[in-house]
């Protein structure tokens, strides 16, 4: 490879190291499906399901795992008649 390229590009190994640290920290913690973000995700969805019928197009879940902090976003569109519908279905 050209020496010019070497100087023109930041090295990629630090990025690889950082990504692996985050990923493996989470994978090790989640042996047995106990990763906190996934536990929270499932319990929050269960709570929502208690009150309304979950329509997958209306519930959007995103997660972003970090080393110091992870984020979990649960976006729910709650229709005006959600409770009535749930009662009818029950």
């Amino acid at each position, binding site marked *: *490879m*050209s020496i*010019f390229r070497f100087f023109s*590009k930041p090295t*990629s*190994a630090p*990025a*690889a190291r950082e*990504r692996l640290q*985050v*990923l493996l920290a*989470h*994978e090790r913690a*989640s*042996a*047995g*499906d106990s990763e906190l973000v996934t536990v929270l*995700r499932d319990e929050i969805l269960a709570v929502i399901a208690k009150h309304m019928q979950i329509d*997958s*197009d209306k*519930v*959007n*879940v*995103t*997660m*972003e*795992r*970090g080393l110091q902090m992870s984020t979990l976003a649960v976006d729910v569109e709650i229709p005006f008649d959600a409770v009535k519908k749930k009662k009818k279905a029950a």
Partner: protein
Amino acid sequence: MGKVIVVTSGKGGVGKTTSTAALGAALAQGGAKVVVVDFDVGLRNLDLVMGAERRVVYDLVNVIQGDAKLTQALIRDKRLQTLYLLPASQTRDKDNLTPEGVEKVITALRKNFDWVICDSPAGIERGATLAMRHADIAIVVTNPEVSSVRDSDRIIGLLDSKTVKAERGEQMEKHLLLTRYDPARAERGDMLKVDDVLEILSIPLLGIIPESMDVLRASNVGAPVTLSDDRSAPALAYFDAARRLNGETIPVTVPGEKRGFFGKFFGRKAA
């Protein structure tokens, strides 16, 4: 209706996941709606190569078992609006992939995407046969070395017998993608020649991807090589392969045979 591609090889470590990501991104960069599907249950890696490993919410097995809807499991690429990933499960094993479940998922994806690209696990077991089962097109990834060519031949046999297309008596469209081609070793005569591999396997050539540091760098930063360095030699080779998948006829250049070091260097400067 979209087309379903399986990226397969038999032998491990030849470049299936790298190629799935690079071709998927290249097709999406051309404006197509693309989903890449990881079939390597238990040993997923496509999420890492795509740089989406921190954002996995649900996976293929969750969808098959009904724990999540397909739309919830799809992860949209942060760089390309039309590129999606369906991750494999890391914690379950292959037995969770049922033929019926896989069929349902592929049928749904086919309706919503222009291209569905399935990254097969190595081997010839369940995971590999399920990944190829519903394909319209197979990309056989091969390195120019004896054991890889032998395993590719074995996989071609499976493609012609164990897939839905084969069972219907139809012809599976098969393409050879020669990867990790090292011009220096070719020069020394220590590597199988492109023509020899083509003659032995006798399927048409989709492209030749050179062995390159750019691929390693791309996987370090978590981007398909066609995104991380779209002027690099492997990226250009993947772009050409994607155009061939779209039906264009462009001649295949053997890496190192046309432009040497200076050609490459000045080509870069001029761009």
